[in-house]
């Protein structure tokens, strides 16, 4: 039995190298802002421009992406899947990747752009990451139990970050 691969840095580098426009949301974005949690998947909201979705689709094929299908079927994401507004929960050669075509209350890449920041992740890697206060708003808007459960930790992380900034 082999341990499944998880390499968030390599996955982000791969998406960057393929010229894909996306915003990191979800657990990885929370960690990048300083929330002490563990997650196993990278959640991204891609730009919905057709050339970007073409690039993303090609990258997914090269990453051997398949849906994390409860029935264990090996279903490959199609280009038309990416054009929808749903969530593509995928397994790739570099770890689980969730492609969220839209998030809570229909927010898309374009609407999240002003509420995101490019973060320097070291080693020549940078990525656009949703702001922590917006991530909290997304979790509130989603309203699911698992999102509500994450709120206290995210809110305390935001508070502590602001205290540090205010010095």
């Amino acid at each position, binding site marked *: 039995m082999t341990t499944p691969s998880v390499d968030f840095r390599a996955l982000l580098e791969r998406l960057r190298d393929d010229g894909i426009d996306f915003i990191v949301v979800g657990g990885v974005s929370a*960690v990048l802002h*300083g929330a002490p949690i*563990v997650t196993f998947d990278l959640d991204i909201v891609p730009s919905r421009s057709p050339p970007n979705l073409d690039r993303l689709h090609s990258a997914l094929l090269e990453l051997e992406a398949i849906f994390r299908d409860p029935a264990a079927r090996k279903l490959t994401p199609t280009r038309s899947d990416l054009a929808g507004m749903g969530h593509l929960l995928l397994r790739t050669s570099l770890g689980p990747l969730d492609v969220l075509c839209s998030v809570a209350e229909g927010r898309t890449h374009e609407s999240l752009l002003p509420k995101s920041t490019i973060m320097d992740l070291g080693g020549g890697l940078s990525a656009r990451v949703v702001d922590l206060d917006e991530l909290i708003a997304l979790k509130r808007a989603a309203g699911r139990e698992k999102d509500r459960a994450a709120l206290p930790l995210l809110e305390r992380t935001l508070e502590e970050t602001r205290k540090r900034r205010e010095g």
Partner: protein
Amino acid sequence: MSDHAPLLTAVEGDSGAYAEDGTDLTLIHWMLDMTPGERLDVLTSGARSLLSLRRDDALR
């Protein structure tokens, strides 16, 4: 036991270790002391470690 008692007393008291809702602020401070890149690498390392432990447990 005696080595641990002062530490336990400190975190259980009004030390600022926990927020009112029980959130462990020491872990948040630990993370905030890192750069975003270091946080990413700690996350990857932690996720891999947990998956490895799960695999080892499944092999028993």
